[in-house]
């Protein structure tokens, strides 16, 4: 695979795994690492042998914020010209399901990276948070937009303004994580879930992801129309034929993503 500086890439069956690998910086996100993650997700999207992606960190840290040293001498204009967050925009176009496996800390940009994924599996000792405000700034890669969509405006406002650390239990209670898992079991359980997803019909998943994500940003009537069209599109797939045939024949379907 491509030579990356800050990530490792593995494939296990039809699951693509991206591991953040800047341990000396607690996997702090710089522009390069984000670009590498997104580039690899795009490759997985284009790769027929991959059905689901997992983004993970190291055992004790998912990703602890952004690279402050890289950022401290930036100015308004240097940011405007470099447009450093544009890589994040490409994340929104990823079509296949992406799971964040959060072990330990997911802070600032690390939390935003997890929120960009479709699912979050977290260890029981994980911590989430947006500490940017404590440095006199604010989240810049989607924190103020994504968190309120998940936990509501009031709770999000409190967490982002106070910049505290949220325990995994609290994150679970607020609906941020899909499943809390013991640290010893996180790898296996995340993989087990990824495999279940990988057996689902890929085209239906793609259409569902689009309908759910776009539905958040458009009026209900438009969302319902989008859903209807996507529902119709599903009928153009072999998986639809297979799924319904298997149902009638009382056997398990085998989906090909065609």
């Amino acid at each position, binding site marked *: 695979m491509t030579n990356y500086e800050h990530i490792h890439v593995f494939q296990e069956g039809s699951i693509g795994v991206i591991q953040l690998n800047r341990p000396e910086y607690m996997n702090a996100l710089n522009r390069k690492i984000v670009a590498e993650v997104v580039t690899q997700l795009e490759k997985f999207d284009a790769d027929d042998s991959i059905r689901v992606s997992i983004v993970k960190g190291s055992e004790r840290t998912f990703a602890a914020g952004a690279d402050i040293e890289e950022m401290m001498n930036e100015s308004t204009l240097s940011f405007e010209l470099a447009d450093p967050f544009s890589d994040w925009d490409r994340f929104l176009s990823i079509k296949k399901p992406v799971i964040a496996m959060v072990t330990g800390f997911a802070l600032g940009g690390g939390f935003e990276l997890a929120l960009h994924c479709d699912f979050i599996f977290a260890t*029981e000792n994980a911590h989430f948070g947006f500490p940017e405000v404590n440095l006199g700034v604010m989240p810049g890669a989607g924190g103020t937009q994504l968190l309120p969509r998940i936990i509501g405006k009031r709770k999000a406002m409190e967490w982002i303004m106070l910049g505290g650390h949220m325990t995994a239990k609290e994150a679970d209670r607020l609906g941020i994580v899909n499943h809390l*898992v*013991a640290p*010893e*079991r996180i790898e*296996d*359980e995340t993989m087990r879930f990824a495999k279940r997803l990988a057996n689902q019909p890929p085209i239906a998943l793609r259409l569902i992801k689009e309908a759910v994500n776009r539905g958040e940003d458009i009026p209900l009537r438009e969302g319902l129309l989008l859903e209807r069209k996507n529902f119709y599109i599903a009928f153009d797939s072999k998986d639809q034929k297979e799924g319904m045939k298997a149902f009638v024949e009382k056997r398990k379907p085998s989906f090909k993503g065609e």
Partner: protein
Amino acid sequence: MGNSFSEIKYEVKSNAAWITLNRPDAFNSFTPEMIKEVTSALKRANRDQDVRAVVITGEGRAFCAGQDIKTVDENTDYSGLLRNYYHPMVKALEAVTKPTIAAVNGVAAGAGMSLALATDFRIVHEKSSFVSAFMGIGLIPDSGFIYNLPRMIGYTKALEIATLDKQISGEEAKELGLATELVALDDWAEEVEKFVDRLANLPTAAFSLIKRYMMDSMHNPLDPLLEQEAQAQQTAALTADHKEGLQAFIEKRKPVFTGK
């Protein structure tokens, strides 16, 4: 081991960490410094791979008389005292993954009782006693007392103890299920050591998994608990102690667990 403590003693022997509250002239009552020392000792014991059980006991005649009453008055910021001192201690105790034991060598009063309630096991003798004592000065039991006690002995008894400030003897504690062991005062030191030794030789990983999920089970529905059990069992199954347990069973001998 570097011992930087002044109001407690900390030592590790036979795979157990012993935290001894050491202000006997003041019945081991809590000062902010002592609470900080207990908190840091608990964290140290939890990190130490050789430690497989943690004991808290008191020097002299008392276990712990609670907050040193001479240091508080009606202007005390109790919320701050709790948030900044007692809560970190209780949370550090709760975070210990190994068996924790209160060897209640005398009176455990007020926050001293709260501390004893926050451990996994209590061992007492006939002269040990517990008393809430908070209501006596117009306060409420704190440091997790209200959370822990009803879970241990049921709501009605807990309410009675919390509100009536009744002194509970060692024997009553045993009857209530508050104490795991009641031993003779004359044999105190050796009985405590025997009990601690037993806990320090359990399959420690399995113990910590049980502890992790049993408290959750008190307020979680069955379904998620079953899922947690299934995952935790797989973790336990991968330990050396499980292998040893099976092997010992086949060979009809007593297993020797290493906590690995």
